[in-house]
């Protein structure tokens, strides 16, 4: 499948190659000690250990990488980055893997929160929690019961006056920056 991606030129395809090349550089010095795996608080929920994931990047195993859900389990706690004896920025590598998966059209469910968050930032300048969550639920229509998991908490937060109504914020003050970044990253 990655063959097909490589043969069909598109800005996103270029970006996939670019991200993968950058990733190989970033974990090139990994010596497979496994400190990252031993340190990961979410390792129990991963199908491939972080250590093995770095090896797969070194070998350029794009298809196998994209089939894994390991990187979606990263909660950005930076314990592996702090402890890596090679000083590799592993948490940032996990984020790049998430981006790689999104560029490849994978992980629609897993990336839904990040996308909803960033769309909200683009529209309002500051995150509006209620409209961000509604957008998240909209992106997660695969699970129509999902909103109900958050209803009790939402009600409590409203009762405490902790969420405000959609709208407000700083408006579209960030729109020009988002547009510029998209243009520069070749994604517009």
């Amino acid at each position, binding site marked *: 499948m990655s063959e097909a991606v490589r043969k069909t030129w598109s800005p996103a395809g270029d970006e996939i190659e670019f991200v993968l090349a950058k990733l190989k550089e970033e974990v090139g010095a990994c010596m497979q000690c496994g400190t990252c795996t031993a340190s990961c608080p979410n390792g129990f929920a991963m199908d491939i250990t972080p250590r093995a994931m770095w090896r797969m990047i070194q070998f350029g195993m794009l298809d196998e990488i994209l089939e894994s859900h390991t990187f979606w389990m990263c909660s*950005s706690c930076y314990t592996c980055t702090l402890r890596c004896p090679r000083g590799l920025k592993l948490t940032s590598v996990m*984020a790049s893997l998430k*981006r790689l998966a999104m560029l490849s059209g994978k992980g629609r469910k897993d990336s839904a929160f990040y996308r909803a968050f960033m769309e909200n*930032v683009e529209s309002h*300048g*500051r995150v509006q929690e209620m409209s961000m969550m509604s957008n*998240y639920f909209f992106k997660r229509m695969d699970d129509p019961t999902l909103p109900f998991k958050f209803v009790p908490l939402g009600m409590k937060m409203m009762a405490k006056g902790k969420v405000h109504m959609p709208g407000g914020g700083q408006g579209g003050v960030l729109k020009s*920056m988002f547009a510029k970044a998209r243009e520069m990253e070749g*994604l517009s």
Partner: protein
Amino acid sequence: MKYAYYPGCSLTESAAEFDVSTRAVMDYLGAELVEIPDWTCCGASAAEPVSKLMNYALPARNLAITEKELDGIDVIAPCSACYLNLLKVNREVVGDRSLHGKVNEVLAASGLTYSGKVEVRHILDVLINDVGAKIIEQKVTNGLDGMKIAPYYGCQILRPYPVFDDPKNPTSMHRVLTALGADVHEWDHGNKCCGASLMIGHRDVAVQSVAAILADAEGADAIATVCPLCQMNLEAYQSQAQKLGAKPIPILYLTQLMGEAFGLEDGAIQFEKNLTVSAGVRRDIANKVWSQPNQTESGDDMAEAKADNLSKGASHV
């Protein structure tokens, strides 16, 4: 002392009490906070998976405004994720000419540029290094005598950049709590991850982290946090964590505890905003139930009454 204040999005909504208590406590300590005009979201941990460039440009915008309009004074951020994202600009962008150029190109789209001169500080850093535990201690009028607090540092203030404390064995919050007259609950989970935004998409995974943290806090009267997401995760999912063996416990912001110890008015502390602070817990804090004599020696009845009180509180959660 004058600082550029970056509240961050959470503090305008779900963590309103963190904002109010931070402003009140800093004012009481003689530090002036000037809110960064027209500040915008730092991108939290959601920007990096979406756009590498926006991950840097979003926080850089706030530093650029500080440079332009507030003479580049130190920025103070109470939220861990805001702090790290702002700090990352100084650590990862400034000094990398190519990346710095790109970030400034994005900033130019809104008429800004960042040269890299603004210091980024977490509130705990300012409390320990600019104010100092001694001054905090002198300002206490209503000490938290006997209240046992578990200091929860979370992740992103000490990792990956340990600027003001030892990430393996942090003590900065210990020092503040001790200055307030509280006892510190020694535990192993003070710097373990709460699951962060995994709580949204993979709650079953994140709840396990929360349950382990809450279980290790057993014996403490409350957990103190300095991050709105940690606070939310530890507080709002206690009923789910209970199924995994955790006990309910109030989760308070460090600045709320400081406000209490400084004798500030209720409106500056806002315990009523916390989901885990029931009327019973508020009464206990007000009556200093933890400083009652003989509590530690003949403490069984007391401990039982306390546990009873806490579980009563939990039924409201």
